[in-house]
């Protein structure tokens, strides 16, 4: 059995160490004011990775097309802001969430009837369809040039998005807190346990009478909703939407972040994006060729030698320390 924290055996109460990410986030706000836009990006990707972890890590649904929901959320928020003149960030975010949920349930209900390669292929095809629509419907999306002119009104009419990114950072942090709370609640609930059961052995879950298909559709929809919110956030902080939000590379990158942190553990989705995006900020612009080479090599090495990601390695080291004395 894998060492996943979840299910009835785990204590659902929040441990003190779980406040660490939030302390770090707030400390970063005060200590690194010039990096707040990168910080906001990291927070958004954590939320996005959390949504992916829910389906890949906990429910065991392998997808290459999670960017469909992220991209849809991004475009819905962007189109509302740039074309419909609706500037309120809460309304934009709610619309992005609703769009993600709607697409999630309609596609999930169809594709979750299939398995393995067919499922993988369908997720890829759905994202490709959306990408093609975004590319060709230039009147609405700006096509390959991207959607600019995104205007976001002050949050709750009070907090304006400033050029230093202070508001954006705190705003993303709050949304992430909400998302984390929801995902954590979900994972420690009986529902979360049944998802782990489906991942480990879906045949037995059928045999004990669990409604496997509906559980999967539900978690897929929830995940798509959260991804839609993350997409809405990226539009609001960038004030621009490009085709890359829907690309296969972006879905692949997200998978890389999740693997790097550790799949099937809620804080893997925190560690991965932090490490990946900071490394990208430091290295990718100077050495683009080496960057992709490094990412690929790291992915191969993680799969070969460290399947639990960074957190898995830490776990192993901790266990060793405890055993020694």
């Amino acid at each position, binding site marked *: 059995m894998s060492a996943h924290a979840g299910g009835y055996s785990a204590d659902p109460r929040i441990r003190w160490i779980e406040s660490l990410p939030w302390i770090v986030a707030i400390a970063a706000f005060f200590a690194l004011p010039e990096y707040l836009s990168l910080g906001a990006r990291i927070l958004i990707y954590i939320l996005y990775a959390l949504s992916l972890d829910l389906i890949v890590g906990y429910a065991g649904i392998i997808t290459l097309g999670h960017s469909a929901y992220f991209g849809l959320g991004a475009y819905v928020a962007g189109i509302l802001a740039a074309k419909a003149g609706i500037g309120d960030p809460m309304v934009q975010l709610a619309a992005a969430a609703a769009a993600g949920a709607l697409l999630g349930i309609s596609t999930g209900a169809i594709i979750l009837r299939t398995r393995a390669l*067919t499922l993988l292929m369908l997720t890829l*095809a759905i994202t490709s369809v959306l990408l093609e629509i975004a590319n060709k419907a230039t009147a609405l999306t700006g096509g390959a040039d991207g959607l600019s002119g995104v205007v976001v009104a002050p949050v709750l009419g009070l907090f304006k998005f400033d050029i230093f990114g202070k508001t954006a950072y705190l705003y993303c942090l709050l949304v992430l807190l909400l998302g984390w709370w929801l995902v954590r609640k979900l994972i420690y609930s009986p529902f979360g346990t049944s998802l782990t059961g489906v991942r480990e052995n879906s045949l037995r879950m059928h045999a004990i009478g669990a409604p496997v298909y509906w559980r999967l559709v539900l978690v897929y929809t929830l995940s798509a909703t959260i991804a839609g919110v993350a997409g809405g956030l990226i539009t609001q902080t960038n004030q621009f939407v490009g085709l890359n939000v829907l690309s296969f590379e972006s879905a*692949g990158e997200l998978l890389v972040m999740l693997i790097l942190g550790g799949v099937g553990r809620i804080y893997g989705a925190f560690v991965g994006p932090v490490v990946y995006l900071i490394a990208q900020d430091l290295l990718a612009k100077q050495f683009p060729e080496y960057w992709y080479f490094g990412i690929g090599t790291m992915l191969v090495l993680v799969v070969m030698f460290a399947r639990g990601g960074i957190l898995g390695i830490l776990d192993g080291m901790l266990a060793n320390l405890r055993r020694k004395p």
Partner: protein
Amino acid sequence: MEAFFASLVSVAFHGAALGMILYVISVGLSVTMGLMGFANLAHGVFAMAGGYVLTTAISRFGAPFPLALALAFVFVAAASVVLERLLYSRLYTASDLEQVLFTIGLIFISVAVARFVYGTLQQPVVLPDYLKGQFALLGRDFPAYRVFIIVFSSVMVGLLWFGVERTRWGAMVRATVDNRAMAQSVGIDTRRLFTLTFALGSGLAGLGGGLGAEIIAIQPTYPFENLVYFLVVVAVGGLGSLRGPFVAALLIGIADTACKYWLPQYGAFPIYVATIAILLWRPAGLFGRRA
């Protein structure tokens, strides 16, 4: 009417050429997935490598075209044996997710290496004189190179089918696809069979990549950009079969060409929608056996 008929013939012709290329590239993927259950997303890397071998052999070393084509096959097949023994074989029993991630990692590496060695520009293909120009048939002119692609691929496909249906090696492959445990117990060395079949499939991908370098542009993002097409061929055709992907590849080649010709404003949209519809109708593909 005559104009419409002419465009119909042209679409069918160019579509068939594209379909044949897609088949030669993807058939190896179908066999690897059917034989080993390995989700090899990096299959396009072999095709890209074949394309680079061909263009380099011709433009840098002045190799004649047939030799360059053969080199594309041999180089890629040899390289794939090394990869299979060193890396792939360790992951045969791993989960789908790990195989997917591992092969995405290989794609990232290959994209970086290709960009480092060749730059981001598309590689030009220098064709020999006898493959340039037009080929007259039934009062119509066809580009000679496309005719060559169709004829050459047909021969390759014929050889492959003969090999799988009529030889001892083919019988062993079919037996292993049907039931690996049983095949092992009657004394088939499935490990060696895997390696050989993997090499053959990858070599064919390299050959297809080189042969189709003029149709599917050779550039570093090749494995990413065309991944969907290769996977569609395999998923729609059905895993582990030879005929399924053939029909699927021709369908996709012709449909894609038709869409680009008559409905350019929709791009590849109709192809993806059709793929989704077919997979929902028959999740195991058109010719796949229910797992």
